[in-house]
């Protein structure tokens, strides 16, 4: 069924209720809300969360913002925790210990800290074992919950509290890990990269596919952080748009190993347009630091080209 924004965004109740304590202008709750809207209203969901901003802001005893069942145990193990829940479902369903008409979907949320870094092993295990679940990484590009420390998702040159832009070392010196491709290397039925863009169509449709594709699926969703990135809270959607239009965060999906780029900008914008509104890149615009912007652009271009090549290559093979 074609995506109907009014039906999904306005008419369908949110499974993550308001009143949670995420910051104004944070990208993550919009992601969680929209992903969960892709769960059929008649289906139950068990949501697992890695320790992080989302968990500590949505489930502070004795209040919860989640209308589905929710489990949080620790930082590095949302994949493993949800594996256990899903295994229980399979086992109990097989033994007739759950009603025939119990249809439960399993969705994990983790930030880039809990996913790219400390939780990578647990995620890899859960994906390799093929549990029928979706793991959603809301990638805000640093450990925001503990106060903006660099992660392997932090882009090169970004100023964070453990990669500060100093007089000798100008921010993070390493490039960011390409997690979606790491997941593609697991030969999953569905891997996608997305974010909250425009009317949320891309995010919603990918979430729906991931949730209703049998097996382990992975979504990497960029979710800007106003505190860590240093943009004005009202500019969230603009930052998302610039990430896509500059090809910093390409939108694509990989279905059974075949790449489809779901949005190709007609006029690819220069990376400055994405970097400029963010305080974490401020030092890159000082006179004498032009090389940093050039390097950044080169990396974006190379990764975009690689993606175009992968799309061409995997579709030719079909």
């Amino acid at each position, binding site marked *: 069924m074609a995506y109907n924004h009014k039906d999904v965004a306005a008419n369908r109740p949110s499974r993550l209720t308001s009143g949670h304590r995420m910051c104004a202008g944070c990208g993550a709750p919009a992601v969680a809300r929209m992903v969960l809207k892709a769960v059929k209203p008649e289906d*139950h969901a*068990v949501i*697992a969360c890695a320790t992080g901003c989302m*968990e*500590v802001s949505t*489930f*502070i*005893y*004795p209040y*919860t913002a*989640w*209308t*589905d*069942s*929710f*489990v*949080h*145990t*620790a930082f*590095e*193990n949302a*994949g*493993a*925790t*949800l*594996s*256990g*829940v*899903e*295994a*229980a*479902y*399979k*086992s*109990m369903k*097989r*033994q007739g*210990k*759950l009603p025939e008409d*119990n249809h*439960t979907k399993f969705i994990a949320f983790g930030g880039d800290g809990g996913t790219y870094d400390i939780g990578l*092993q*647990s995620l*890899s*295990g859960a994906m*390799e*074992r093929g549990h029928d679940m979706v793991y959603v990484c809301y990638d805000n590009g640093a450990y925001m919950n503990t106060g903006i420390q660099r992660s392997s998702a932090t882009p090169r040159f970004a100023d964070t509290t453990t990669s500060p832009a100093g007089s000798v070392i100008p921010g993070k010196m390493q490039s960011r890990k390409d997690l979606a491709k790491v997941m593609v290397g697991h030969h999953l039925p569905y891997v996608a990269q997305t974010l909250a863009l425009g009317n949320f169509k891309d995010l919603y449709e990918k979430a729906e596919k991931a949730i209703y594709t049998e097996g382990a699926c992975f979504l990497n969703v960029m979710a800007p952080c106003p505190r860590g990135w240093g943009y004005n809270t009202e500019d969230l959607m603009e930052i998302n748009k610039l990430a896509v239009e500059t090809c910093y965060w390409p939108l694509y999906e990989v279905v059974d190993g075949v790449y489809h780029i779901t949005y190709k900008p007609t006029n690819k914008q220069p990376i400055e347009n994405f970097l400029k509104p963010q305080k974490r890149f401020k030092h890159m615009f000082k006179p004498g630091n032009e090389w940093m912007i050039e390097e950044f652009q080169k990396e974006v271009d190379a990764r975009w080209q690689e993606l175009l090549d992968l799309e061409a290559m995997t579709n030719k093979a079909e």
Partner: protein
Amino acid sequence: MGIRERLSGNEAAAIAMKQINPDVVAAFPITPSTEIPQYFSTFVSNGQVDTEFVAVESEHSAMSACIGAEAAGARAMTATSANGLSLMWEMIYIASSLRLPIVLSLVNRAVSGPLNIHNDHSDAMGVRDAGWIMLFSESNQEAYDNLLMAHRIAEHKDVLLPLMVCQDGFITSHSIENIELLEDDKVKAFVGEYHPEHYLLNEKEPIAIGPLDLQAYLFEHKAQQGNAMKAAKKVIAEVSKEFEALTGRKYEFFESYKMEDAERVIVCMNSTAGTTKAVVDELREKGEKVGLIKVRMFRPFPAEEIAEALKGAKAVAVLDKSDSLNGAGGALFEDVVSAMYTNNIHVPTVNYVYGIGGRDTTTKEINSVYSDLNSVVGNDKVENPYRYLGLRG
């Protein structure tokens, strides 16, 4: 009237798990408990159990998956040893705080480092304050029996705590001994079905588990865990009585071996109790008044009962198969001494750290402890109460 078999401790644990038929088992291999998931996955492959076996990529994930499964409404079990338990450590605390009655078969082994694969109790002692019920087993039979009682205890509504059954790595896990098994149907009837009150997969009542729990509530929640641990004593006693009626095998908080008029007493756990019994028998034949307290229920600790049992002794030696490296004494020693002190019982007591890293402990050494105790009798203040047994000079 039971099935007579010859099994290793690991086989006994695996058979117990087969008969319990849990909904989920998540485990990762580690010596010397590896055989348990090996045997168990064979039961799964051959359709002898209904279990979903999750071959996780680490012990941290094993306990995480058990937590997820148990929270989902399933019965979940696992097995591990030493560094496997160390890697689980974070999740061990979380399992008990979420009040999930997971059952773990712990085959005790020395925790690194340096690396060693043999038996001592340093793994178990590392989680002694984690809010798990801990039952120790002298033999294969006891490891099997304790596992059959485990769910009845852990899942009791007054308890709802995870439980680990300990046995000695290699010494019992890999030694084949005679064992009496219960018939499958009797185990099924005894263990019963698991019907949790609240669980994730109940779509009629969604729940949230594992909150951020701050200053306003965490203290109360921890006190509830503490109270559940206290309540577990009564439940363990009741379930053990019921088990005795079914099998004729008697289990108490601890076994008092030839304690009636005992003056010199050893307190220890697991397989060393077997060695000690041989020495007690030998010395009793010579007319010496010696006895043994073998602690089965280490958590909750039966402080009052142990103090009472030691009341008539003239000297006590507590054997710790793990060194607390605190300059004062091992964990069991400190618990026993504190139990006596708070119950106003004053018996001169010494501590022997022994058997570290699988060092053999012989009847000769146990004999030397009873003999050392002769010089402890009558002491007001014991000189050098924190000692080593079997350490090369």
